[in-house]
């Protein structure tokens, strides 16, 4: 029974070709490049507004040196939010449910912030491992704890996104299969399940957008610490 439920997360292949590549192309195909006219159409204006206000919000706490990360953070945000929300359509595959993809983004980007911090200001970067005002006997253990928390960041970043989206999709599948199987025998229970499904879908839309935002926000925080 469990194996049957998790089958939706199997990376799809067709005649040996991985179809995840097509799923990953979706953000590129859905956003046409803006044209150089002064006044663009509504879709372009909306995109422009979104990217502009997102970058403004994300980069304002970061000092000027970190502003070169603007393109990367904006691209990551658009990429993740598109993949997450598209995955909520029936019969679509969500690449961000794959731990491999989320770790593939989390680990290199986190490592980049850490390496930047250690190269530019190693004392300052090491200073993050000991909070100010710690009583002396607690210093060794606190350094160990802070180092562990530093090393666990990429794992947490990747697993958070994977787990949230996987759990959401799993719940939707469970509740919808319950509603479907109960449809003829116990219609009231089935209609309650359909109501639950509606609320769940609304929650999942919110979660999809929030989790993409949290991923990028945490990366910007790690950048802020190290720049």
């Amino acid at each position, binding site marked *: 029974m469990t194996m049957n439920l998790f089958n939706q997360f199997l990376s799809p292949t067709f005649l040996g070709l991985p179809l995840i590549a097509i799923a990953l192309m979706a953000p590129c195909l859905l956003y046409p490049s803006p044209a150089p006219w002064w006044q663009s159409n509504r879709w372009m204006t909306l995109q422009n507004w979104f990217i*502009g206000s997102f970058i403004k919000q994300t980069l304002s706490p970061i000092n000027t040196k970190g502003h070169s990360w*603007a393109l990367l953070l*904006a691209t990551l945000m658009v990429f993740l939010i598109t993949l997450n929300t598209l995955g909520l359509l029936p019969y679509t595959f969500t690449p961000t449910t*794959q731990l491999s993809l989320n770790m593939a*983004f989390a680990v290199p980007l986190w490592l980049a912030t850490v390496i930047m911090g250690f190269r530019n200001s190693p004392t300052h970067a090491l200073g993050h491992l000991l909070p100010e005002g710690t009583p002396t006997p607690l210093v060794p253990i606190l350094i160990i704890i802070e180092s562990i928390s530093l090393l666990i960041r990429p794992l947490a970043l990747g697993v958070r996104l994977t787990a949230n989206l996987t759990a959401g999709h799993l719940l939707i599948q469970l509740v919808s299969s319950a509603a479907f199987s109960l449809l003829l025998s116990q219609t009231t229970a089935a209609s309650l399940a359909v109501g639950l499904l509606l609320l769940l879908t609304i929650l999942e839309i919110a979660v999809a957008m929030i989790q993409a935002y949290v991923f990028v926000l945490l990366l910007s925080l790690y950048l802020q610490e190290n720049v």
Partner: protein
Amino acid sequence: MPQLNPAPWFLILVFSWLIFLALMPPKILTHQFPHEPSTLTAHKPKANSWTWAWQ
């Protein structure tokens, strides 16, 4: 859990980074954020356009 199957991990990494580095940035870069039009009576136009920083 099929997500823990190590077989497509490297392929997924390569594909996702390829798309993330090669295909998405040009689309985002072409978005420009020009000056907002100021009124005629403004003595000093506020120069607040922003470009994708590279330094």
